[in-house]
């Protein structure tokens, strides 16, 4: 229970009532902007972006696949960070956030796998191969599912959260494997084409919609996690008076 190491702002945000209001205020903006960006991105991707000279229009699935793929890794990273806070400081909020990251991340991972294999059919002539990138991504999905499953398998909410957080931390090992799999092993899956430091090996007409979509997915991720965290907090803090008064108000 040694919260004292926490920086001040974390204390502020760490207090459930504050976070509840903060998240509630922030969420609609995030959601709205992510939808707008996504709309533009989709339009740019499916209509404006040039047809690929070798893949034809099949490649356009990249505008879903890649942002989701990036998000699957990003979501796991977020979960791991929250999990660390949960393990070290036993902050209720961190536990809740870590647990709420998992389902969203799992969804993104699933979409990555599906769009990927949809894309793989025309490109590689197969839905699935046990190539390093694909396998590690599948492992990522199982890790998300494991966290969700473990969290639901233990009666006591907080104990469950900490056990699942620990699993999330253990699973971090898989992140670099997913990312660098294309470098370390010769995979069917192509290597990194978008490069934020040097010049990208991708036509600018394809690049900007891709980046828009990536931004949109990030915003959406935060929006949905914040929302789920609010609900989760109410469950954990059900006993506390701020939660009860809040329920009273909403009832009136």
């Amino acid at each position: 229970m040694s919260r004292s190491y926490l920086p001040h702002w974390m204390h502020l945000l760490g207090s459930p009532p504050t976070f509840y209001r903060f998240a509630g205020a922030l969420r609609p903006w995030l959601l709205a902007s992510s939808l707008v960006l996504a709309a533009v991105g989709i339009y740019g991707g499916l209509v404006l972006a040039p047809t690929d000279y070798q893949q034809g229009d099949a490649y356009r699935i990249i505008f879903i696949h890649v942002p989701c793929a990036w998000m699957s890794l990003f979501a796991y990273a977020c979960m791991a960070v929250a999990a660390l806070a949960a393990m070290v400081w036993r902050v209720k909020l961190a536990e809740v956030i870590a647990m709420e990251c998992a389902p969203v991340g799992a969804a993104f991972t699933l979409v990555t796998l599906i769009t990927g294999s949809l894309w793989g059919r025309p490109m590689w002539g197969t839905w699935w191969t046990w190539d390093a990138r694909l396998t590690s991504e599948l492992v990522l999905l199982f890790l998300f599912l494991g966290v969700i499953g473990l969290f639901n398998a233990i009666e006591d909410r907080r104990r469950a959260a900490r056990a699942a957080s620990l699993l999330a931390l253990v699973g971090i090992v898989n992140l670099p494997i997913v990312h660098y799999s294309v470098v370390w092993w010769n995979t069917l899956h192509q290597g990194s084409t978008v490069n934020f430091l040097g010049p990208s090996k991708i036509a600018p007409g394809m690049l900007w919609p891709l980046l828009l979509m990536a931004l949109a997915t990030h915003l959406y991720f935060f929006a949905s996690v914040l929302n789920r965290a609010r609900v989760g907090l109410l469950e954990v803090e059900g006993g506390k008076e701020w939660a009860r008064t809040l329920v009273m108000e909403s009832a009136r």
Partner: protein
Amino acid sequence: MNHDPARADAVLFCVRGLAFARNDEPVFGPLDFTLDRGETLLVEGDNGSGKTTLLRVLTGTLAASAGDIRFDGRVATHEVLAGRALFLGHHPGVKNDLSPRENLAFLAGLYGTHEGASIESALREVDLAIYADTPLRLLSAGQKKRAALARLALLPGDLWLLDEPYANLDRHGIELVNALVAAHIARGGATLLTSHGAVRFADPDARHVRLALSL
């Protein structure tokens, strides 16, 4: 429960406003008590009143939901308690496939032994000498219990936390536990033991904590 903050740092074991709740429903209410060297504290309560839970909170296997526990004036973390507290629970923590001697040898390997004590002497103290090499699964309920109690005569540790040491024991067994506790107290140790009071506890000047059923 004479609770006196002034000597909080002086006393061996000091508990303030300790409470535990499972999913927000309280198991035992805020407790305050101190336990110093040479003292015995008897935790009494009916079945389900929270004695075992309290002991598990004190050993740190369960995280308290409120209050603090101090050992030698420091917050009682795992590191602080490690090797200085001796716990004996409903689950005796002995292996049925091992003999009393083997079980003791293992515990002694982890915790060490207090001066003058040996596995043989410990087994003799609990009248198990003749069963020293029989696997526990072949012993009677009370003999198993004695095999678990034997560690009290062997291992070091200032603070004893005993959960129903009397269960399954006959009259001699009960006197035996009381004797072990008396010796520990005399050595300057502290003992906290639970009982639902069906068996009367020897030490006349032991202080009491009563847990009420919180339904």
